[in-house]
């Protein structure tokens, strides 16, 4: 291949990558600038305007941001911890003591993710209502854990499969029981993978909107409900909606940015080694 040809290819690849990145980032960028406009300016396509914090003031005056944010934090952390606590032992037994049906169970678990959530809305709503879980933080933690558990188990399973079986056998000969094996060897050895699993759980449960909108109203409502409350069928609301959205996604975007390296490494853990 000639040098000119390879340069051309490099140039095309770069151009495609940048176009895709801009395409993905543009809505977020537009939301960010709209948040600093007035409601009238929000309907104009201009990017040159006098920035104002008016929408933020209105949003803070109308609703208790900190309460929503507090719920989001409590729910995301709760889901992450609970999911990992359940997923790690499950993945351990599947990875190191597989039965004849282990692969089928894994596939079945994943298949539940293919079902549209709305299909089980009615039974779940009634269950939650009758158990007194509606509009409670613990109720949301339970439903988010249930929907994210397949991903958590699947990821932990993949990382555990990378751990040589002989190392755990050596530990067994050294006198380690199952818990000591998990705590002293398995967890430290698969820490990068489990950390990215945790981050992913955190992000997924922070962003989950369907169940929070349907199963909570005021008391346990997280930031996704807060955003939704600014959408209305009529009137001017784009600037306020954008300000609310920015307030809701900012924390998780900062976290995602900081953990980017870890996240990518964790997600490609099995592929490159």
């Amino acid at each position, binding site marked *: 291949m000639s040098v000119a040809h390879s340069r051309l290819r490099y140039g095309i690849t770069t151009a495609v990558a940048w176009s895709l990145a801009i395409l993905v980032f543009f809505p977020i960028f537009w939301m960010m600038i709209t948040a600093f406009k007035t409601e009238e300016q929000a309907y104009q396509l201009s990017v040159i305007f006098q920035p104002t914090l008016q929408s933020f003031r209105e949003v803070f005056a109308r609703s208790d941001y900190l309460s929503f944010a507090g719920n989001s934090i409590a729910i995301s952390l709760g889901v992450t911890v609970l999911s990992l606590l359940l997923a790690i032992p499950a993945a351990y037994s599947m990875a190191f003591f597989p039965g004849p049906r282990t692969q089928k169970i894994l596939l079945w678990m994943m298949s539940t993710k293919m079902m549209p959530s709305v299909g089980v809305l009615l039974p779940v709503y009634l269950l939650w209502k009758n158990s007194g879980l509606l509009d409670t933080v613990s109720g949301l933690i339970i439903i988010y854990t249930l929907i994210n558990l397949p991903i958590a188990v699947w990821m932990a399973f993949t990382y555990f499969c990378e751990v*040589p079986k*002989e*190392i755990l*056998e*050596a*530990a*067994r*000969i*050294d*006198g*380690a029981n199952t818990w*000591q094996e998990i705590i*002293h*060897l398995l967890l*430290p*050895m698969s820490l990068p993978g489990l950390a990215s699993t945790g981050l992913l759980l955190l992000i997924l449960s922070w962003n989950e909107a369907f169940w929070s909108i349907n199963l909570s109203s005021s008391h346990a409502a997280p930031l996704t409900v807060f955003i939704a409350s600014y959408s209305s069928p009529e009137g001017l609301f784009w600037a306020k909606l954008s300000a609310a959205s920015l307030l809701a996604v900012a924390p998780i975007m900062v976290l995602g940015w900081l953990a980017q390296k870890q996240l990518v490494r964790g997600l490609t853990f099995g592929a490159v080694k």
Partner: protein
Amino acid sequence: MASVNLRNVSKRYGDNPEVMRDINLDIQDGEFVVFVGPSGCGKSTLLRMIAGLEDISGGDLLIGDDRMNAVPPAKRGIAMVFQSYALYPHMSLYDNMAFGLKLAGKSKSEIDAAVRKAASILHIDHLLDRKPKALSGGQRQRVAIGRAITREPKVFLFDEPLSNLDAALRVKMRLEFSRLHQDLKTTMIYVTHDQVEAMTLADKIVVLSAGRIEQVGSPKTLYHHPANRFVAGFIGSPKMNFIDGTVSAIDTETVTVQINNGGLQQVCVAARGIQPGDKVSIGVRPEYLQLDSDHPVIKATVSTVEGLGDFSYIYAASASAEEPLISRIPDALEVANGSQVGFSIKPHHCHLFDSQGEAMPRTAPPTQH
């Protein structure tokens, strides 16, 4: 220190038929025993059953005087070294060797003494702060052995410990295993597919094939008195030649065999269950298959000559044997590829196997010339 006894041990997976059956074996206290056999013969499975990493489906395993079938690995008084070393990658060498003692709740000073003692035996004192990643293959293997030593086991189990090392290091470490056994005088069970390791290390070799013990004995016994054709072919390198023939006469201490497409060969064995007319095969090791142009019993065509310095191996195709015959000759003898050669064999250098592959007992000392 302890003996290891297996009584009618068997192994099956699920409802499948047994993969190992009726394994009976006595290992004396302080003995160095090597399990050897081709891959898939069950040697590693047997070792893992002794270690407690595989369930024993039937029979009894005794270590010392105690039945160990249901005892967890850590309580069997064993230590194991794996082919892949199986070091804990996130721990320093010191912690790798101390891990078992820490779990056992030993005091800091006891642990320190045990680790330093093992490290000095294996000359890895200066590496104790490092992680396994920073070591060469040979050093990792030493750490794995060190981890085993700190447990002060009654029985050491080694699962193909040298397979991941290069040839030169393998020879060096083989000598170290010998030295270690002389120093510690502990019972050791060593699994390998390499019959040279087996011959050089073992007090006693156990040859396995397809989940069965073929023969148990000292290296010399297995070399000179293999119980069957499998053992005869497996022990020794290059492998034994097998020459096909028919029994023509039987005497008290000799059997005369008519070699297919060849002459009459006398063999110093006692006939057991064979009669004149039966198909048999004569076994002869390459060093005893001699070039002889005056009175050859077998004729062959040379296909390859391998010069090794002080001697050469010639490979020759013959109508008397299925596989090419291998003969060791002095390097001074010039033999050209494609040339016709004749071989003769002294009667006391021959083995004789019946059509089932069972060996006839030899009646003359095999080592005389």
